[in-house]
């Protein structure tokens, strides 16, 4: 029997699930091998579960989001935190760490109580996660391989090497050596160093690797003129809470 698959989302930008729909040449083939029982972005009539596999994108940013995340967890055998919002909370969860938090105008629209706004958080702050595919957006090829492995009942392997590892494989010239701020040394390289290959410093969108050397990264960027304030803005952008947890080790 084909596995029952769901692609669900809570607060985010929908870019992660688009990486699946952008599989183009493989899309129809892939869809023929699964039973896509729920994917509200592309189909009406969606099953409320159970699901064999559930891809969940987005961060928990409202009470409704939290209810849904719990519901999807309960109904899924395998639940994947899909993309950087789900995995790390992304930028909407960084306001708390905003270096100029005090300077943000205290302008609140009068009637926003109804929105039940809650501080944006990661999925793993609330529910158990089986796999995490980080990335803003996730890498299409990594996603495709991951799904293939799951369907073949192989244990999916996801990259744990940093971006620098792939820059070396791609024979890129080091951007930091050319004075361009880059978070490649401490960032997960599931993208195979896509930004540096496009001559843009790594922005850290796949979150930090577990054994990152934060102090050395800071010193490297300081040497090319990145102030502490800008450095914090850069590292806190995509995975603020994860950084907070890892930095405490230093």
């Amino acid at each position, binding site marked *: 029997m084909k596995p029952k698959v769901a692609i669900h989302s809570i607060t985010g930008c929908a*870019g992660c699930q*688009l990486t699946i729909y952008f599989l183009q040449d493989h899309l129809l083939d892939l869809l023929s091998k699964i039973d896509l029982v729920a994917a509200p*972005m592309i189909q009406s*009539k969606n099953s409320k579960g159970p699901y064999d596999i559930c891809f969940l994108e987005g961060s*928990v940013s409202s009470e409704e989001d939290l209810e849904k995340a719990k519901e999807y967890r309960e109904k899924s055998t395998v639940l994947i935190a899909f993309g950087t919002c789900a995995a790390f909370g992304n930028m909407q969860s960084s306001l708390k760490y905003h270096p100029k938090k005090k300077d943000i105008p205290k302008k609140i629209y009068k009637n926003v109580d109804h929105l039940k706004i809650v501080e944006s958080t990661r999925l793993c702050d609330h529910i158990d996660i089986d796999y995490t595919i980080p990335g803003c957006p996730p890498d299409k090829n990594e996603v495709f391989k991951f799904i293939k492995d799951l369907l073949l009942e192989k244990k999916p392997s996801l990259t744990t090497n940093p971006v620098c590892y792939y820059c070396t494989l791609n024979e890129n010239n080091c951007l930091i050596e050319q004075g361009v701020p880059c978070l490649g040394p401490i960032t997960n390289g599931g993208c195979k160093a896509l930004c540096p290959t496009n001559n843009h410093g790594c922005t850290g969108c796949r979150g930090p690797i577990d054994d990152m050397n934060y102090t050395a990264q800071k010193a490297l960027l300081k040497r090319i003129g990145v102030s502490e304030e800008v450095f914090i803005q850069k590292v806190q952008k995509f995975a603020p809470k994860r950084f907070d947890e890892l930095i405490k080790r230093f």
Partner: protein
Amino acid sequence: MVKKIQIDYITKIEGHAKLYVKIDEGIVKDVRMEVFEGARLFESLLIGKKYDEVPIITSRICGVCPQAHSIASIDAIEKAFGHVPNKSIETLRELLLIGQIIKSHTLHLYFLALPDFFNKRSVIELAKEQKEVLNLGIRLKKLSNEITTIIGGREIHSITNIPGGFTKAPTDEELTTLQKNIKSSLEDSLEGIKLFSSFSVPDYSNKTEYLYLKKDENPNVKGTVICSDNICNSVEKYADLMNEFVEEYSSAKHVTIGEKSFFVGALSRINQTLIPDDIKKILDKNSILFPSYNPYYNNLAQCIEIHILLQKAKDLIKKIDVGEVFHHKITPKKGKAVSALEAPRGILFHEYSFDDKGYVTKANIITPTTQNLKNMENDIMKILPSLLDKPEEKIKFELEKLIRAYDPCISCSTHFLDVIWE
């Protein structure tokens, strides 16, 4: 007779929204598009950020139209700092924006809207019977992704376009291949017009202000004047025209002109475009006339726009000198600027103020979907009485079709609120 219509999760649109309609003795009393996407507070997030972080952040407002946001950011930043990009960089950005519009339209038309017209619940069901039609959509999608990848570095959240230019220029070879692929797609885009003009839509018209951007007296994706038949307002003074407010049932802001709703998007733009003869012939066959003020025709307008923009892209590529495409150093200075451009769903505004070191002190962003929300509600209110004698499921289906014709992008609409965590 139905008293209440409630759609708890409008499917096949980007993001999370509900529809709530109250009816009393056959009269529609209340229509609410309830947006329940969580607030992401982008404008607050931008405060205090260094200018080069801004496009990286704003592109994350939306996975469907990230290039539109990053280009608007870059444009406003350069304007504020008094930097004028060279012609090749300007043209490459326009090409990226065109790729963005085609990409978004194709996703909406072939993956989200098309199943409705064949009474299918999804593109997957549709693929079983109409594989050729779907393959046409996939080919156009692939081409648009090729444009955004060659220029921007990837399909979603582009990498290379930054304040000052591009980190990497496409090669002449890449542009030549792209040119060739665009040429061979023109047949597909024309087929798309044939397909969508063959679908019948309800006979309905609601002539509110149909806004579009104009530059040097012509409609343009990057404009300086906000226009309609009755309005002519400079982009810099957008705030005088647009009245932004919060409805207590929605996490998206709403926008009106005075008290009135208005329309932005492909239909607005096509209403102002001289339609080429080959397209006109197809439309004539189905007795379809533009300008039209029937929002259901926004789908067809998107199809027409894909074809016209592909033609334009073909010409733009010829004007690019890749040797001129690189990253100019720009120097921050204190100032503020507004950028407006035609995003896939209509006019997008980004406005920033910077301090002398290039840190953001103020940010305001108005997206097309927020501008269309009121018009969408008004259209539902007007069209609903003609549907009330139908079974509830049918009414819901027709209303969802109308909402989908607007191609709302909910993620884009919900980043507005400024809230401070205490």
